[in-house]
């Protein structure tokens, strides 16, 4: 029988596109024949903004890239500038940074889990995810005063020291989280319908995944052991005991499991960091006249010079953000503002591999596979 192809515009306003993303689908009944991703609805010119702001002023903007995991964005940018200017960061600051980074990884994966299950039609897990996320956000609120857009990292250290009672609360959170993860696994992992929807759906093999430039948990779900924390260890990760979580099945379920495993690894890292937190400065005091501010009412208040000019040069740093490899390419021309900031965002690179995964499948599979690559539109469009 002759049938027409149906052109379906999914999005930009659609419940399952996690924001403003448009899929241009050519459908044969319910089967997807072709998928074109139209993005850019959330483009805010962040890279250009980077050229207009001073090095310090750009930090709040990095929060808004991947707003679910602002801390790794902060960190990636700050790390790039530190490498550019050759600033050494005190050990305590690095510990605090890793603590916040791993806490953020947990938050990110909680939201991932919730929204994936929501996309599949079960509405419970997302509120559970948000329930635990709220506890982590309260920790952040104690630490830096914000709940989503932290702006906590500073070039050469962090903004404020750990507040009193932070570590015990963190330990509570870890203990609580361990119990909750058992709940999640009971609800989701063995659920037959969930398995039906996830297994052998959205398959992308290792070679293709690498060719598309996928990184992070999505790539590790295809059996590639690629974790920048292990390959190019930065900060204090070399001293910490953890393993990169890899699954070989290449399908949506593997990508989901990798993230659940990563949550447990992050808890493991958090526990180590909390136990071995050293004393010391939280921001560097050596270079560029950075010194604790005189007469500051609280000892933690620090003063970073307004006129900060790193030497001429360029640097590309990459970090393992919760969603994948987050790279910042910063070029300095010796003035107070960067000459160019280029952001290599994990969401963007992972998203372009989606059509490969879902051509020939159905709309519900598109939703499931899309959920497992875990993107945030702020990160895709920048």
């Amino acid at each position: 029988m002759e049938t027409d192809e149906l052109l379906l515009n999914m999005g930009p306003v659609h419940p399952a596109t996690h924001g403003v993303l448009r899929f241009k689908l050519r459908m044969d009944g319910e089967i997807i024949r072709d998928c074109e991703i139209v993005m850019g609805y959330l483009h805010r010119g962040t890279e250009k903004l980077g050229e207009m702001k001073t090095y310090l002023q750009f930090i709040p903007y990095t929060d808004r890239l991947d707003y679910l995991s602002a801390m790794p964005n902060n960190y990636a940018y700050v790390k790039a500038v530190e490498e550019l200017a050759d600033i050494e960061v005190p050990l305590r600051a690095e510990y605090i940074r890793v603590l916040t980074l791993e806490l953020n990884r947990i938050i990110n994966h909680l939201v991932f889990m919730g929204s994936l299950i929501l996309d599949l039609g079960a509405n419970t897990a997302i509120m559970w995810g948000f329930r635990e996320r709220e506890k982590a956000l309260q920790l952040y609120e104690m630490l830096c005063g914000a709940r989503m857009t932290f702006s906590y990292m500073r070039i050469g250290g962090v903004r404020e020291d750990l507040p009193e009672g932070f570590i015990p609360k963190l330990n509570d959170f870890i203990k609580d989280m361990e119990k909750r993860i058992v709940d999640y696994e009971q609800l989701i992992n063995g659920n037959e319908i969930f398995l039906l929807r996830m297994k052998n759906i959205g398959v992308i093999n290792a070679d293709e995944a690498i060719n598309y430039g996928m990184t992070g948990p999505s790539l590790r779900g295809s059996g590639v052991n690629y974790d920048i924390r292990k390959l190019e260890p930065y900060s204090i990760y070399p001293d910490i005991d953890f393993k990169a979580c890899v699954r070989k099945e290449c399908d949506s379920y593997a990508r989901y499991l990798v993230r659940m495993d990563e949550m447990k690894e992050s808890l493991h890292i958090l526990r180590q960091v909390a136990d071995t937190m050293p004393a010391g400065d939280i921001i560097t005091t050596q270079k560029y006249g950075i010194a604790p501010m005189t007469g500051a009412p609280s000892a933690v208040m620090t003063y970073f010079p307004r006129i900060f000019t790193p030497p001429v040069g360029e640097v590309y740093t990459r970090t393992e953000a919760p969603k994948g490899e987050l790279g910042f390419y910063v070029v300095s021309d010796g003035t107070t503002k960067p000459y160019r900031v280029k952001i290599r965002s994990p969401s963007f690179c992972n998203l372009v591999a989606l059509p490969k995964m879902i051509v020939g499948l159905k709309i519900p599979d598109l939703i499931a596979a899309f959920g497992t690559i875990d993107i945030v539109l702020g990160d895709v469009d920048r």
Partner: protein
Amino acid sequence: MIANAYELVVYILSAIGIYDPINGFFQNYGMEYLLRIIIIVVEIVVLLVFVLLTVMFLSWLERKMFAWVQSRYGPMITGPHGLFQPIADGIKLVGKEDIIPAGADRWIFTLAPFIIFVPALLVFIPLPFGDSLIISDLRIGLLYIIAISALSPVSILLAGWASNNKYSLMGAMRAVAQDISYTIPLALAAIAVVLYVGSLSTVDIVRAQEGTWFDIIPRWFIFVQPLAFILFLIASIAEMGRIPFDFQESEQELVAGFYTEYSGMKFAMYFLGEYAHMFAVSGVIVTVFLGGWTGPVLPFIPVQITSLVYFIIKTYAVIFFAMWLRDTVPRMRIDQLLNLGWKIMIPLALLNLLVTSFLLTAGVV
């Protein structure tokens, strides 16, 4: 023996001694039929009010349970524990602008939400709420119920087609495909029970389940026909159109499926229709497999009241299960449901039918 609600009303009226005078009054003018009509209309109004109140309560219960599963409170502000929330919702929805999309088929678009109520309400006619609490004990009761509830996709198809929206159309198509694949196992599972009882009448089916084995296990068909029960339950949940089988709406895929374009009061009609349907389907499950109104007879309380209470408790247990399931599982894929229906449920139902009829002919049960 009082057979249905009409006779019950007549019985009560004569018991308090006012039936004969009223009847005599109407007979004077040669209009006995007027009294019949009045009584039937009153019955129907009572049923409608009951259904509407139940629907409101159900939507509150659904939200509340959903909230508890998610560690939330749910509605708390309007009334005690938010009990009047459905009324507030209703007022809000009535006040909304009623939008008809430009390319829509105006008449069908407007008519479809009202059509969905018809099957949901007609199902209540042969449904025994209690001993003699039944509008009409049809001799083909079960067949009637299955046939009528298979009508609800018509409304969905009309809505989906008239909306002139691709998502709506896909939702409607899914609803039709789903309807065919679950109605057959539903009917086949029910036939096993009918074979056992030897009658299609819902009252006869309930009466066949009275009594107990060994004084503890009630003679419900769930124990006689466990496989048929499971098939019937799965098919019924599919018929309610709820997670894990809510393909007609499937919010994350089709925005809102067939009612994507609806707003205001028409949207509320679908909402009400869904819950009315849910209550009706749960009532059918209770009637066919869970012993209907049967239960221990209490002294001094009229059997009509106790049986009504038993029926409602059982129905709410089934509804609780449906809501509980909704809070737990994700949605299946439409082709997976079709596979489940055609490749697993229908063969199983046929097998069950075969075994049942064999055992019945052999006189084992």
